[in-house]
């Protein structure tokens, strides 16, 4: 077992983990943060996307020990005082989901995307979300939502 200290969604946690524990399993099973989901076994689908020190990463392709000393933000850490994050709000308003399974990862990656590019074109959004798969929506409303959040200054 290896001792790690990680800041997750603003709170600091110190835990003993097996080195082979994936970050996503640590978040879900040890911290109970089940908002971050596992979709695939190959790093393809992006539904487990979280932010590590402010940049998007796939938490199934990271060991929990690799997050030692770093800061993680999950979908559960986005809202403040019951207010949805602008990206969450935009996904809600533009109906950018159907089954909702890809949504936590889509939202985390979309926030990273507009931090780099505050005024993305359709193509910029589609390319920026190339590592996130949605099997329901056809992406149309996701693109709309990301652009709406960008226009509303949702990068914060």
């Amino acid at each position, binding site marked *: 077992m290896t001792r790690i200290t990680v800041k997750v969604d603003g709170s600091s946690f110190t835990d003993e983990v097996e080195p*082979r*524990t994936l970050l996503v*399993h640590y978040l879900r099973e040890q911290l109970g943060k089940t908002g971050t989901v596992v979709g695939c076994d190959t790093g393809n689908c992006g539904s487990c996307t979280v932010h590590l020190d402010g940049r998007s990463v796939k938490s199934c392709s990271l*060991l929990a*020990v690799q997050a030692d000393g770093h800061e993680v933000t999950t979908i559960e850490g986005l809202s403040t005082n019951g207010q949805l994050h602008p990206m969450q709000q935009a996904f809600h308003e533009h109906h950018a989901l159907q089954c909702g399974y890809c949504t936590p990862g889509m939202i985390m*990656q979309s926030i990273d995307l507009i931090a780099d590019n505050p005024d993305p074109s359709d193509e910029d959004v589609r390319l920026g979300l190339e590592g996130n798969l949605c099997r329901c929506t056809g992406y149309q409303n996701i693109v709309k939502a990301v652009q709406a959040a960008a226009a509303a200054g949702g990068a914060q």
Partner: protein
Amino acid sequence: MIPAPFEYFAPATIDEALGLLREHSDAKVLAGGQSLMPALRLRLAAPDTIVDLAKIDELRGVRDDGDVLVIGAMTPHSVVQSSPVVNEHARLISLATATVGDPQIRHRGTFGGSLAHADPAADLPAVAVALDASFVIAGPDGRRTVSAADFFQGVFSTALGEDELLVEVRVPKYTGWGAHYEKFNRVAQAWSIVSVAAAVRLDGDSIAEARVALGNMGSTPVRATAVEQALVGGPATADAVREAAARAADGTSPVTDLNGDADYRRHLATVLTRRAVLAAAGTA
């Protein structure tokens, strides 16, 4: 799936890492983990020991060293992609790096990790071969330098010994050259079926120097020397480039797999080479 159990070390220096590799014969080096982690999860790899290089600061960063650019092995793709010095002196690297995986993968995956993994369908090996990069390797007897042409030895196989580490890659400067990376795949995020890395220097309207290398046309990247020779001294016109590019598949032995048979890959190589060279000349 959950990886098989292993012992984990995160050394702070290159010497410490080399010591760990000497002590643990079944150790696997972890760079950004974007190829190794899926392999561990699918249990295609199950090493006894993982040596994580993330805490070795000297392996990270891009620096300008006179006639060459030096890219630390642990520099993430996203840093290489947005580096102004890389863009100015080795634009081919910026362009190819921007096509690696997806944004999340580029935040974690590293320049050296991708090269040391030596997947025949990866993007950066062909670029390193095209640009005549040198690989600086640290081992028990000190450091040695290997050319890109000698570094790649087969599928997932390189000149790196089991007790050695890739430290940095030195790339000659191609300031003012035009560059283009042409990658053919069917869906977003997929590996290339064939890729072509091209850089050209123009003198007026004619091609003064050319570097062309092919990805996934064999077990290692292939330098298209016949194309380079046919291009040099000729005009950068569609007809001349088409004629030169027709030799792209000469001497190659690509695989046949579900994405395409060998003949299809040989055809693709000529088409993509034409596109890549013309696009590179257009930006020179």
